[in-house]
């Protein structure tokens, strides 16, 4: 999400910079009685003749509202955190913050699930409050397997110091061998 905002910011900044410069240049050229540089005068004349109720103007206004809403969503939406702060140790040094990266946690939890007997593949996703593990197994009793994976995932989160931060959810899909 940060990267998307950054790219959008660069694009909008360029639009403002180039648009502002173009506007100033065209106005100065008009004041000096020179021919326009990039914006044909007919286009601006057309724009001046439009009313609020013309279809084109309504379309432009609708697009403006939609783009604005899109920008608001992108600006205000909280993405998944990049890292989680671990609880301070009682005997830890001052002014030291220890975090665990979200991707690292996902790798670690997926690996723990894969190590369970009968699991052929596993993926983990971690959000602000929950760690979700999807495992695929070849056994017929996924419920039994799920309990084991839940315990292993909880143990790993305890090792990481995040068992109180993240709730766990484990789903097991059975793909029997024929």
């Amino acid at each position, binding site marked *: 999400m*940060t990267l998307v905002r950054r790219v959008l*910011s660069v694009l909008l900044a*360029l639009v403002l910079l180039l648009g502002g410069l173009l*506007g100033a240049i065209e106005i100065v050229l008009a004041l000096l009685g020179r021919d326009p540089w990039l914006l044909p005068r007919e286009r601006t004349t057309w724009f001046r003749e439009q*009313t609020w109720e013309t279809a084109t103007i309504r379309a432009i206004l609708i697009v403006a509202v939609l*783009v*604005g809403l899109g920008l608001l969503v992108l600006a205000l939406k909280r993405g998944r955190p990049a890292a989680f702060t671990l609880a301070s140790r009682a005997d830890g040094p001052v002014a030291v913050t220890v975090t665990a990266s979200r991707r690292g946690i996902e790798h670690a939890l997926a690996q723990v699930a894969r190590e369970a007997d009968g699991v052929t593949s596993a993926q983990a996703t971690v959000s602000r409050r929950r760690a979700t593990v999807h495992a695929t197994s070849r056994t017929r009793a996924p419920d039994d397997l799920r309990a084991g994976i839940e315990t292993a995932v909880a143990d790993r989160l305890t090792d990481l110091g995040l068992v109180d931060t993240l709730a766990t959810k484990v789903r097991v899909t059975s793909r029997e061998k024929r």
Partner: protein
Amino acid sequence: MSSRVNAANRADLTVVGLILVAGGAVGLVASFGGFGSDTAADEIFPESLRDLAADSWWFWPALAVVSLLVALVGLKWLLLQMRTDHLGELDLTDDQRDGITTLDASAITRALSGEVEGLPGVVSASGRLRDRGGPRFDLVVDLTRRADVAEIRSQLETQVVPHLRQALDDPGLPVVIQLRPGQNTSRDLS
């Protein structure tokens, strides 16, 4: 990426979004007769505005200035994207009368990374000195799949951080350690 830049981008995108939504919404209300059918049938640039533009010598120059200000806002926003909070060197000067002392941060980060990479369970480490309203050291540590996270954390906090603070002559230097577990399995066998 600098967190200050990220926060500024969020704020700027919010402002632009609000302007577009508000302007578009008001325009649509006018378009659909919310301010009266006469307003809906009005030209976007009414005659009064065109008369003002024709009769006032300052109108177009003022508009050109506004246009330049918009360009300046865009330029400032663009330059903001290039800002970094990376600190290349640390100023250790106590009293300028005795001379100016600076420390090249890269030397410290290289030495520190080497120390951290020597710990069992650590694949790689990289450090960076940042300016977050004062110097702060960020350390990223990649761990093997089977690394003992608690033990590594303890060693980092009780050995590595004190060494770092001693080298930088700053016992209270804020340090942020990011652990990245499960990144690599090749060193699990060693």
